[in-house]
């Protein structure tokens, strides 16, 4: 089973520190260089602010990931404990964006230019920048683990790994059994 990160809506204070931390953690260069180049701000987690709820939403690392199963170029695959986008294969078709029921997938603009495709604009025509699908990747390789979890001032995130999920299930079943023991006659 995959591991995923999920926020607790009762703790979130809507500060967006998670979005910033996520974007920074995935920068190809250090933050000062990125600022100088005006690199696009690209978090893979998105804060939802609605009348009844405020909380961030990110990829659920589904076992039968719809994004993966709809990808026409097999660019999305299972790797260890998560679903990854192999961006070198992505053609930017957005099928995965449409498929994801959580809205966790987005298109990220890269610094690289496409080989041929040009975009006509008021400056004439210029080579379009590559756009690839991106989503939460559990910050694999990052020393402190998921950046959002580390930075959140309200400690609102939970890393749900299979062990935790199974233990939670067993605890709930036991509590239910206990309740039946004292309740029913």
């Amino acid at each position: 089973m995959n591991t995923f990160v999920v926020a607790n809506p009762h703790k979130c204070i809507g500060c967006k520190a998670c979005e910033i931390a996520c974007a920074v953690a995935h920068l190809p260069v250090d933050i000062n260089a990125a600022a100088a180049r005006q690199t696009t701000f690209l978090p893979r987690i998105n804060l939802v602010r609605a009348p009844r709820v405020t909380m961030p939403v990110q990829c659920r690392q589904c076992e039968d990931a719809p994004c993966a199963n709809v990808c026409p170029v097999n660019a999305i695959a299972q790797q260890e404990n998560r679903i990854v986008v192999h961006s070198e294969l992505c053609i930017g078709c957005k099928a995965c964006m449409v498929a994801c029921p959580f809205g966790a997938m987005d298109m990220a603009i890269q610094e690289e230019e496409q080989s041929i495709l040009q975009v006509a604009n008021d400056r004439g025509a210029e080579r379009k920048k590559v756009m690839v699908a991106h989503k939460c990747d559990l910050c694999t390789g990052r020393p402190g683990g998921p950046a959002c979890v580390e930075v959140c001032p309200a400690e609102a995130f939970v890393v749900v790994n299979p062990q935790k999920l199974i233990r939670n299930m067993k605890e709930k079943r036991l509590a239910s059994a206990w309740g039946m023991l004292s309740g029913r006659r």
Partner: protein
Amino acid sequence: MSIKLNSFVVADPHKCIGCKVCEVVCAVEHLDRECKTVGTIDAPLLPKLFLVKTPKVTMPIQCRHCEDAPCANVCPVAAISEVDNKILVDEKICVGCKTCMMACPFGAMDLVPRYQDGQVIMQEVLTTETEDGVVQKEAMVANKCDLCVGRVEGPACIQACPAQALELIAPHKEKRKRNVAAALNLMDSVKKFMS
């Protein structure tokens, strides 16, 4: 207008002996074909109810077919719906996101692979990296008690339990039973109180 509440199966922990016959027949009744002997089973047993076995309590736990089923209300693809007073998972729609597992307060939802003719069903496109290279990933779906929908004799677990520890509760019927018992109870005590 009378509202029909969903029935559900529940065990009596004072009667359960922890024999797992309920799990066995549940799994067997949901296989892709009829299996009468152990030797004919060629896939892991995947029951829809789960025995809790501890020193202080032993009983199986299964879905309560909640009226406002949390599992259904968190499903991002609306794979869970109420059909004929049963909360059912549509395996074809489920994407295995595990949110319903988190949502269920009873732990009654499990995540399982599916088998056909002894082989596990794979996903169409999604692959996974293993030590033997890149292979198709097994499809995983949400799994919970379906009240043996389609089975003529009704829930198999109730039929098979050697301790008769499982019961199908029709909530309003049970409520009326208890109302009557309470009323009868009061007949004597109120008489003695009022006189």
